[in-house]
């Protein structure tokens, strides 16, 4: 027999992660819903997951690769930028959608109970689908440029999971703030744009002065992208210091994010 105790929640670390696990099926259904809805009325549908990164890559190659002649560590510029755009596009989508997800599902928050963490979790999972499709294009490009995959490719899921954690960590902060202040919705496109230039997408990390590398690692996406280039293209092994700073910082942000989220969720239904 289930026994539920209802009382005002206390304490910072009462995170109820067990509840999230119990509702994992709902997580699946929310991901499924988002995918269905997204492709329902789009004529090209899944094609967008190919066109978007492909066009961005072409533009970057023309402007940064050909015109600005930004170095790419000896790797053909198209594949150099595409390997970074893969995790970046995933991250940008996950962050944007996840930060808006609580407000988007406000009718659920007002009317039915389930662990609220499920909502941002589901929305960082959904864009993995687009990622998978864009990934196929990368394989085609690698064959075209004759870049042979190395054993490093086995580490790719780890870096992808890392990107997911970064997106989740940030949206656990932005989502609840968005419930109260809709400014977040306006700020996110700028945040994403600035963040993109702060990440080694159009340029290699080797362009960043040595003494700034540790600080640069505080941008966790720098670690993710470094990892992707290394895993896929066999470029120089990633700067270990940079990656570990990235990982540590993200874990900290994520943990604090969950605590912050749990603290804020108490009043979601009342103020949304």
């Amino acid at each position, binding site marked *: 027999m289930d026994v539920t105790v209802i009382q005002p929640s206390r304490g910072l670390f009462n995170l109820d992660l067990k509840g999230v696990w119990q509702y994992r099926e709902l997580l699946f259904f929310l991901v499924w819903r988002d995918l269905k809805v997204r492709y329902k009325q789009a004529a090209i549908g899944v094609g967008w997951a190919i066109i978007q990164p492909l066009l961005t890559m072409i533009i970057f190659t023309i402007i940064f690769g050909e015109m600005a002649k930004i170095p790419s560590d000896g790797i053909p510029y198209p594949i150099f930028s595409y390997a970074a755009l893969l995790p970046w596009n995933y991250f940008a989508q996950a962050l944007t959608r996840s930060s808006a997800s609580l407000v988007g599902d406000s009718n659920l928050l007002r009317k039915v109970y389930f662990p609220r963490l499920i909502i941002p979790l589901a929305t960082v999972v959904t864009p993995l689908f687009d990622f998978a499709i864009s990934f196929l294009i990368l394989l085609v490009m690698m064959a075209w440029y004759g870049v042979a995959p190395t054993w490093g490719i086995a580490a790719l899921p780890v870096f992808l999971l890392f990107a997911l954690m970064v997106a989740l960590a940030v949206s656990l902060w932005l989502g609840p703030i968005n419930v109260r202040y809709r400014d977040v919705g306006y700020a996110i496109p700028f945040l994403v744009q600035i963040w993109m230039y702060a990440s080694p997408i159009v340029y290699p990390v080797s362009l960043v002065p040595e003494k700034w590398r540790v600080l640069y690692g505080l941008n966790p996406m720098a670690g993710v992208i470094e990892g992707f280039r290394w895993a896929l293209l066999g470029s120089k092994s990633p700067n270990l210091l940079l990656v570990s700073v990235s990982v540590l910082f993200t874990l900290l942000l994520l943990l604090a994010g969950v605590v912050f989220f749990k603290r804020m969720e108490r009043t979601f239904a*009342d103020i949304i």
Partner: protein
Amino acid sequence: MDNNIAIQVDKISKQYDLISERQRHDTIRELITERFRSAFSRNGRAQTRHTFWALKDVSLQVNKGEILGIIGNNGAGKSTLLKILSRVTEPTTGSAVIRGRVGSLLEVGTGFHWELTGRENIYLSGAILGMTKEEISEKFDEIVNFSELDRFLDMPVKRYSSGMYVRLAFSVAAHLRPDILLLDEVLSVGDLDFQRKCMDYAKSLKEDNATILLVSHNMFSIKSMCSRALCMEDGKILFDGPVAEAIEYYERNSSKIRDLRKDDAHRFAVHLTDMTLSDEEGNPCYVFDHGQRMRIRLKLKATKPVHDPNIIVAFVRSDNVNCINFCTALDGFTLPSIDGESVIELLTPNLKLVAEFYTIHVVVRDRSFQNLHLFQIGPSFHIRHDLLNPHFGVFHEPARWSLCEDVSVRSEFSAGKGV
């Protein structure tokens, strides 16, 4: 805790911040400017912060298998109580223990998505209401049969009529088989035929020994389903006991004039300042026998002159059926204008309405029914009759019946049809 208790609520209170327009910071810019303003003025934010208690020290015990009705005016705290028990929101203080799987239906169609088809929505909504995928697949055919929408299953829900939407949504919900069901007003939707289906569903849950908490304004469904009812007001339980007594308590209390919607009043040129109901002899009265006449005295106050006013008094049944309207323009009573205070009385014909709970709406328009000068909700009253209830329609007037001895009527009719 005693094994026979399904819900034990212990002194639950819920406080809301009452945020006025000026204090609501929906953007950070407003927050910053407001903070600056309060820093430089003497009325700090702390002083202007208002709160109110939607629930205050509510304690309650519900046994397994009990069907409990919750009645009360808008804002009495009924929905807040259900929201807390369904864990949508947290109490400010107090606690509650619930034994059993809880299902809550606080609205129809929770989790539905417009773009998805009926079939997809059955799965989605089922999962959101707490069913497992396995359970939904198992009951899928049953749900479809119940909704009678098998032909529209692969159509996006956005193309459904509102009736179809409600039917599908409720069909999913009806197959949630919780131990404890929290229901908010959802039975009052859909056509009559479907409403009956919903009642049957609730009764089948009752047979399964489920515990149900039902919030409704419809005294008819409360009466037919519940054995016990709570009457709430201002966040407190004022009465807890047998359903007939609870309804009587509610009706007695909602007969007061305080029911007038004061917040709307300033928008209109005319205000209803007082209203009394009495029997034909003029004795104040709120319960009328079927067939009795009613005297209604309205005290109106016009802040500016209103010419050719058309005063309308409507009786609205508790299930929101507008049953009868008295109207000066139709009844041949002319007033050139009203200005300042005026008292108007009307004596109704014999009221042949069925036994139910009615609320009086007072409307003032002009003769052409164009402008609205007043719309307020006045007191409520009850019509008493042993037999007549809404199953008999809106009103009852005896017809003249007779047995025809001349059977040729029928043959003439059929002969006529043949020509």
